């Protein structure tokens, strides 16, 4: 479905992606993990054509995506920060995206699921952070595209909404979709993901199943396995100092 070859990207002097080779062939949920600044969002944005690669190539269904836009019809994307035109009402925003994309989305079911009916006529500026995130999820998931990319979908959600999101993702997975998720919540990954891609310092450190990851690093839980990867990374990257810093930061966060 999506194949990435030797993807490289720098912002100024900072090399964010240092040659990523990745392929998403099998449908299912893939969690993209890594400490802050490891290049997760840049990788996702490159797939969407929002960040333009310095080197390398991304193919979507076998076609190079550079310069094209129509392939995005097949991708639903949930951005990390949910901010919309302040003066529009929720209903108008939904209608607008529908108008821009065409097709027949199924927003009603999702609006009901996340109990958004009372907010349909409110201006987006008046909504709380969590409610915005729910609107964001409805916008991203109301279409039935074969690829679903979610950047930190869990941020700001209350436990009930979180349950609904998980249920929704399971349903989408059963439909045979490719779902890419970035998150920092390990329990979410353990519960949902079929495959894990671990990014560190702009390189892929591990790609494979959850069980495989745990076995490879001889750990009882995902958190421990990741702590191991980071410690390894610390040793491997200690020559340049950055890896060490990043690894320490994440170990603290874990």
């Amino acid at each position: 479905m999506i194949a990435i070859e030797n993807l490289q990207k720098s912002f100024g002097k900072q090399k964010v992606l240092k040659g990523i080779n990745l392929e998403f062939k099998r449908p299912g949920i893939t969690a993209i993990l890594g400490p802050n600044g490891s290049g997760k969002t840049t990788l996702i944005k490159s797939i969407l054509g929002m960040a333009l690669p310095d080197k390398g190539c991304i193919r979507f269904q076998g076609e190079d995506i550079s310069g094209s836009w129509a392939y995005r019809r097949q991708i639903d994307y949930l951005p990390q920060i949910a901010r919309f035109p302040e003066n529009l009402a929720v209903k108008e925003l939904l209608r607008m995206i529908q108008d821009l994309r065409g097709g027949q989305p199924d927003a009603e079911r999702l609006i009901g699921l996340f109990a958004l009916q009372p907010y349909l006529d409110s201006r987006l500026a008046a909504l709380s952070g969590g409610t915005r995130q729910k609107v964001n999820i409805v916008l991203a998931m109301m279409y039935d595209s074969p690829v679903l990319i979610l950047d930190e979908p869990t941020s700001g959600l209350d436990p009930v909404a979180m349950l609904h999101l998980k249920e929704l993702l399971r349903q989408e997975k059963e439909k045979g979709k490719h779902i890419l998720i970035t998150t920092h919540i390990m329990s979410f990954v353990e519960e949902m993901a079929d495959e894990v891609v671990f990014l560190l310092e702009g390189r892929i450190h591990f790609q494979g199943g959850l069980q495989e990851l745990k076995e490879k690093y001889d750990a009882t839980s995902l958190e421990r396995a990741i702590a191991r990867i980071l410690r390894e990374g610390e040793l491997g990257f200690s020559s340049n100092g950055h890896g060490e810093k990043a690894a320490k930061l994440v170990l603290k966060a874990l």
Partner: protein
Amino acid sequence: MFKILKYSFFDLTRSRWLYIYGAFYFLLTISLLWLGGGLSKAIISLMNIILVLVPLIATMFGVMYYYNSREFAELLLAQPIRRNHIFFGQYLGVACSLAISLLLGVGVPFVLYGIFSSTEIWNFSVLLLVGLFLSFIFSAIAFFIALRNENRIKGFGLAILVWLFFAVIYDGLFLLALSLFSDYPLESFAIGASLFNPIDLSRILILLKLDISALMGYTGAVIQNFMGTLLGMACSLGVLLLWVVLPALGIRWVAARKDF
């Protein structure tokens, strides 16, 4: 692109500031017409205000709108839409809503005053046309600058600096050059130099139409000679159009190469 334009426009028509902007022109024009005495006087007073205020407000609105809709643009970029269309749509949305505020704010009082039965109608039309051009020119420049600068404060500062340059500093340098080289024939230099500043060009266009270029002395007479003709008029309008097209091409160029 027209869909994006439509939604940007609707989004902006709900912003209070646009109404304040239109209402300001409305009240100003009414007081100039009914208290200031006469159409031609009101046109000249309005000219001085429009030439400074329209570029300033267009610059600020353009920069603010771009930065405020930054995250939303990201959402749009992930949709199956061409990049160019997103930013052109947003730019045209800002420019059109500013233009309509100006058109209604200034136009309605003049119509009520009876501009259609007056001989001043052409002078008034040139004033409005120039105001519309300036709205499109400066919001395009503002969008271009904002697209190039991720840092909001830097973008804002730079955009205001560009406005200040064209509205104030350029004239100062122009005058300085004229007085320093007053021993030389400077007429063609004067014409050339005014083409490079859309605000100056607009001012000359209106003054020529008002037939008060005699106030500008010999140079004025030469400019009148050049621009008073149909060719000169077409030339200046063409250059104004170029002032819209160039920053718009800039927007396209930056948008195609930018990472979001």
